[in-house]
């Protein structure tokens, strides 16, 4: 299943870059996307079943608007702290344990933490332990963890 999906995505990318639809170009596109998919299909999706993946993808789309809002808020906060003459920052490093169990969920949380207000991920292990550097004391990421858990499990 992941093989077919990867091949389709690769072929779509090929079409996008070439923009031409002659038989020889289409043919070499099909051959090379099959080859790439054969070599690397386990990297993109892992071994989850199609239904689970589709559900996750849909819930991820629902998560995006909230993420964009947070990114904009984060940036205005950052602009304030950067341009203020006294630079009101007070960095700290914190550890916490997130209850996530797919690699995709963990990397998604790590990237979301980096993009949202006041925090950058410093370390994320596959058992879900995170180390976070925050610009201001007392920023937290629990709300976000809950949302990503919902994407992962579908609850």
């Amino acid at each position, binding site marked *: 299943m992941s093989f077919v999906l990867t091949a389709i995505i690769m072929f779509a990318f090929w079409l*996008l*870059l070439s*923009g031409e639809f002659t038989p020889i170009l289409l043919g070499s596109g099909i051959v090379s996307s099959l080859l790439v998919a054969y070599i690397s299909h386990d990297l993109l999706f892992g071994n989850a079943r199609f239904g689970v993946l589709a559900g996750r993808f849909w819930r991820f789309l629902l998560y995006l608007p909230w993420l964009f809002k947070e*990114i*904009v808020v*984060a*940036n205005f906060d*950052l*602009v304030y702290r*950067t*341009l203020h003459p006294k*630079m009101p*920052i*007070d*960095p700290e*490093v914190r550890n916490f344990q997130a209850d996530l169990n797919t690699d995709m969920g963990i*990397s998604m949380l*790590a*990237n979301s933490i*980096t*993009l949202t207000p*006041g925090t*950058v*991920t*410093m*370390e*994320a292990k596959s058992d879900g332990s995170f*180390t976070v*550097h925050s*610009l201001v004391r007392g920023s937290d990421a629990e709300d976000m963890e809950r949302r990503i858990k919902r994407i992962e499990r579908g609850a």
Partner: protein
Amino acid sequence: MDLRVVLAGLFMAAGCFFLIVAAIGILRFPDFYTRMHPAGKADTLGQALIIAGLIIYWGINLVSVKLLIIALFIMVANPTAAYALANAAYASGVKPWKKGEERK
């Protein structure tokens, strides 16, 4: 003046503002970890806004799909690169700056 051109201009101006702020932040902040914040956030948003402006200007076709892919890729890759950098620095024992210390 077309409304779409004005909108594209606004988006690009906002993007330029965030990119400049990111540059200033990278120059001004006291240590490596605090510099991650402008590099990971303001830079990502700035480039996304500029590319969004270009998409608005150009309308929907093959070119704007390419632009969209560039923007999405940077939005995934930039925080990942920032994370990889922070993680490497942390693993090699670079100490974070605390308030009141001298700038590095």
